[in-house]
């Protein structure tokens, strides 16, 4: 589903965030992306999402070259991906319900489908009480869960989550991991950048480990790090 061939990313200020990354993720996989802060995890994710363009190399999504997408094909790519942003990116003028509903409106879902699906997803992330509230009135963890709800609401073929449990307590984190597991078992590919050692070690999924812009380890049923 995702193929990176010798992808490098050098930001305009000269920082080399990705260094010759070659990696494949197949449909239906559940992949953890781990590595120290600043290793390049978010940069890799941003290239799949076409938020950034690679400086060198090719990146494919569903056999289509992401780099070569035309302007009007980008929205189609993004609709196939449910994205949990590290910095949330909620619309500050819309309620929790509207924020999640908006992701469905964008894809042209009917009002009826939206009214059915949004409350369901909100209760899956434990926020059914907060539907009418503005993002600024939520706790950090609640905001993060709104992002997760928004990412899964469209039943995307790929879910990318950039540290989705950073603001969540362990119990809530596990609930979400169970949710992700369930979604994954129905065929959705999941790529999750995380620092949660417990979760990675317990889940026994494929682990991609990055350091300094390179993929330094790629193990099926891996653990967070080899040393510990």
């Amino acid at each position: 589903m995702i193929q990176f061939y010798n992808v490098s990313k050098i930001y305009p200020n000269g920082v080399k965030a990705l260094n010759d990354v070659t990696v494949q993720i197949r449909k239906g996989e559940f992949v953890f992306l781990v590595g120290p802060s600043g290793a390049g995890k978010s940069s890799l994710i941003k290239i799949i999402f076409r938020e950034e363009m690679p400086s060198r190399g090719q990146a494919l999504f569903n056999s289509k070259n992401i780099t070569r997408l035309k302007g009007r094909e980008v929205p189609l790519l993004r609709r196939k991906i449910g994205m949990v942003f590290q910095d949330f990116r909620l619309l500050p003028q819309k309620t929790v319900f509207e924020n999640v509903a908006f992701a469905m409106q964008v894809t042209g879902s009917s009002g009826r489908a939206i009214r059915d699906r949004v409350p369901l997803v909100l209760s899956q992330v434990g926020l059914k009480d907060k539907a009418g509230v503005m993002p600024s009135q939520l706790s950090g963890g609640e905001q993060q869960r709104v992002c997760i709800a928004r990412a899964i609401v469209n039943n995307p073929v790929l879910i990318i989550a950039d540290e989705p449990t950073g603001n969540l307590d362990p119990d809530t984190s596990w609930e979400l991991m169970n949710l992700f597991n369930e979604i994954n078992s129905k065929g959705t590919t999941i790529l999750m950048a995380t620092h949660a050692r417990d979760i990675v070690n317990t889940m026994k999924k494929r682990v991609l480990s990055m350091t300094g812009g390179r993929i330094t380890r790629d193990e099926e049923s891996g653990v967070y790090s080899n040393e510990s």
Partner: protein
Amino acid sequence: MFRNAWLSLASVGTVTISLLILGISLLLVMNAQAFTRSLESGVEIRLFLDSGLSRVDVRDMERELKKTPGIATVEFISREEALEEMKKNLGDRQDILEGLEEENPLPDAFRVKAEKADNVPALAAELEEMKGVDQINYGRGMVEKLLAVIKWVRLAGGGLIIVLGVAALLLISTTIRLSLFARRKEIGIMKYLGATNWFVRFPFLLEGMILGFTGAVIASAMIYLGYISLVNRLDEVLPFVTLVTDRDTLLVVIGGLLGLGVVVGILGSAFSIRKFLKV
């Protein structure tokens, strides 16, 4: 909601003020032009005729004048009429003309109006050569001055309207751009959720249109009511000053403002949003 309301208020206010200034100037310029037009139409050439012409001669001349290209109206003024007119002009002191009735020193004359005031000097020169014409009078000097002034009023008025129109455009689109700037994150997020450019753009264009239209309606209403009451008040106080009041002119001004408001609202949004869509 409240934030948006504030932004919208700012934009509507700017549209209103800009169009108000533009509309007022438009009326000002239109009145100035109507006034100069009325001055222009007052310009006339007087042909003083040789004494001793027969009635037939005079009628021939009148026919010939009416055929001359560039002449709009021709009117014969007999020496008796001329004397009456002169008396009227002298008012209080007409006694100095007493006794002149018997041996009226004034000649017969034609009063000729040109189709275009611009042509008056050339036409006058041409008519001076005509057989039977003794002397010619068209306020030489004055007419040239008047024509120069009229040309300048038109030029300056046109220039003023263009400058103010551009200024209004700039002000309105700057405001719209600033209010979009304050919402740039929102636009970016929509794009990240997979919204097409049109999906993002449409509500902003609609909003821009509504803002522009609202501002234009307020400005038009203020101008219309203000102008009507000004005209009425002037009618009382200065009955001799006549402002342009025909409905067509007012409709042009108000229609222009409304159209401009809507167009600038839409175009301002469209242009401003472009750079925020590139994510």
